[in-house]
């Protein structure tokens, strides 16, 4: 089992060791497994424009997550507690936005952003990331609210609380673990995005994944730097996703399968 894990994770481990390998050793065969680790690639990244792209990724992912939660959580609560006309249509539309290929949104957004001067802005990315984050929040939070007992809402009403007060003071605190998990998933999906950022940004609002790919395309084949950049992009993802691994499948299948 351990051997299988090592084989499966080989591509991943190889990239990690490349990021701290001196450039002269990178394409030596047989590979030198005992080498003096170097921080040179990370230092080169730090001195270039890469920190800006990491900052852009962080700001955009955090903002879109926050917005999606503020708008989506109350909606999820309402869908969990009340019956609406056209509920089937709403559910279908949420599923459809999760399933649609990204290019279906990219084409119109590209054209509209050209007119609104939103190309290559962080705001532009925040808005397009809402297309998948809002559906994710509504879908995931709805099942978390379904799991919190209604009788607690009703008890709050008897004590004279309004629906909104009951929601804020009773149901919401109970759903905190769900909100945390949902927030992390939104952040990860935004952080991991490549396609939208590739097309909608150029230089100013460029995100870390696009910046790494630019090393590949424009700066020749500086493998050490590429590996170091990739490592910086993947580290937060690895940490956060292991925190929410219980909810991963729910998040990935949101829209068709209840989390």
């Amino acid at each position: 089992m351990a051997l299988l894990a090592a084989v499966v994770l080989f591509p991943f481990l190889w990239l990690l060791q490349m990021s701290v390998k001196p450039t002269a050793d990178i394409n030596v065969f047989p590979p030198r497994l005992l080498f003096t680790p170097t921080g040179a690639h990370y230092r080169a990244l730090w001195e270039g424009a890469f920190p800006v792209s990491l900052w852009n990724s962080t700001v955009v992912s955090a903002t879109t997550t926050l917005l999606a939660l503020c708008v989506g959580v109350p909606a999820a609560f309402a869908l969990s507690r009340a019956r609406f006309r056209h509920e089937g249509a709403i559910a279908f539309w949420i599923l459809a936005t999760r399933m649609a290929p990204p290019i279906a949104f990219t084409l119109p957004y590209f054209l509209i952003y050209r007119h609104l001067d939103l190309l290559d802005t962080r705001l532009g990315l925040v808005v397009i990331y809402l297309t998948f984050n809002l559906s994710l929040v509504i879908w995931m939070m709805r099942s978390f609210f379904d799991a919190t007992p209604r009788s607690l809402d009703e008890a709050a009403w008897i004590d004279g609380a309004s629906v909104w007060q009951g929601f804020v003071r009773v149901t919401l605190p109970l759903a905190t673990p769900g909100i945390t998990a949902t927030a992390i998933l939104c952040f990860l999906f935004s952080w991991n995005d490549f396609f939208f950022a590739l097309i909608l940004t150029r230089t100013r609002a460029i995100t870390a994944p696009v910046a790494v790919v630019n090393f590949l395309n424009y700066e020749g084949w500086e493998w050490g730097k590429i590996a170091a950049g990739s490592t910086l992009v993947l580290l937060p993802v690895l940490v956060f996703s292991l925190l929410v691994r219980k909810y991963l499948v729910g998040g990935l299948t949101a829209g068709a399968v209840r989390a």
Partner: protein
Amino acid sequence: MKRALAGRRDRTYTLCLLPSLVVLAVVTLAPTVYLVATSLTPLDLTRPATALDFSQPSGNYALLLHDDRFWNSVWVQAKLSAGTVAFQLVGGLALGLLLAVRSGFVEACRTLFLIPMVLPPIVVAIMWKVLYTPDISPVHSALAALGLPIPALITHPDWALPAIVIADVWEWLPFTALMVLAALKMMPEEALEAARIDGAAGWQVLRHVVLPYLRPALLVAGLFRLIDSVKAFPLIYILTDGGPGTVTEVTNYYAFRQAFNFSYLGFSSAITLALVAAVFLLSWWLVRVVGARGDVE
């Protein structure tokens, strides 16, 4: 009194839902309408006058029907989807069964096996670019040292697509394995015991008891992978750029090229809508499958 209260509650619920509906309409519905409208024009970014030219609304679609490159992309897509989904189902089933063994060590390993799936897709693509680039690939050097040199896969017409399939299977195998594992956890012990008491051998239990039980979970996992395989982008962009020639140019990638390499946004919108229609059909099937057996998990 009671009625008035209930009315007020309903109003609150509606107010909670409303902002989401407005935002969804603005960020998803409006762009979709725009996409449909664009697909009815011959929009070419290098000729701005084409933006509002609705004189031949079906022009792009007529063109599409006779576009060999489009049909080639559909065929490439079919091969890619069939390859990835088949291997992910078989491999995911095997890995899921392996990980279902109850031991502390195996359970600790489960997390390790999840890693490929949670990595940023672009990083996965870069990892495989390293392995597929002969100059720096440890795999290429090792095979050469063993006297089995292999050609550069991603620039080879016969091997470029299988190379992408391998990377994609590696990335998403944990997903099907996880779905299998979740289904196995829900499996009633009695069925297994009954089969054992009847004297069934291990593989007979697997074939006649476990597999039929897992079938719906496998179908759902396969459909999910099928739908997502239509959106394949980072691997193709980084590894082959659709080439050599158009060997790995799936429909999604063809639409991307028409729009952002050649500026034909109108034609690209038509290709994209064809893609959206296919995805919707598959999603509809998925919902029916899931609905027919209630909610999984």
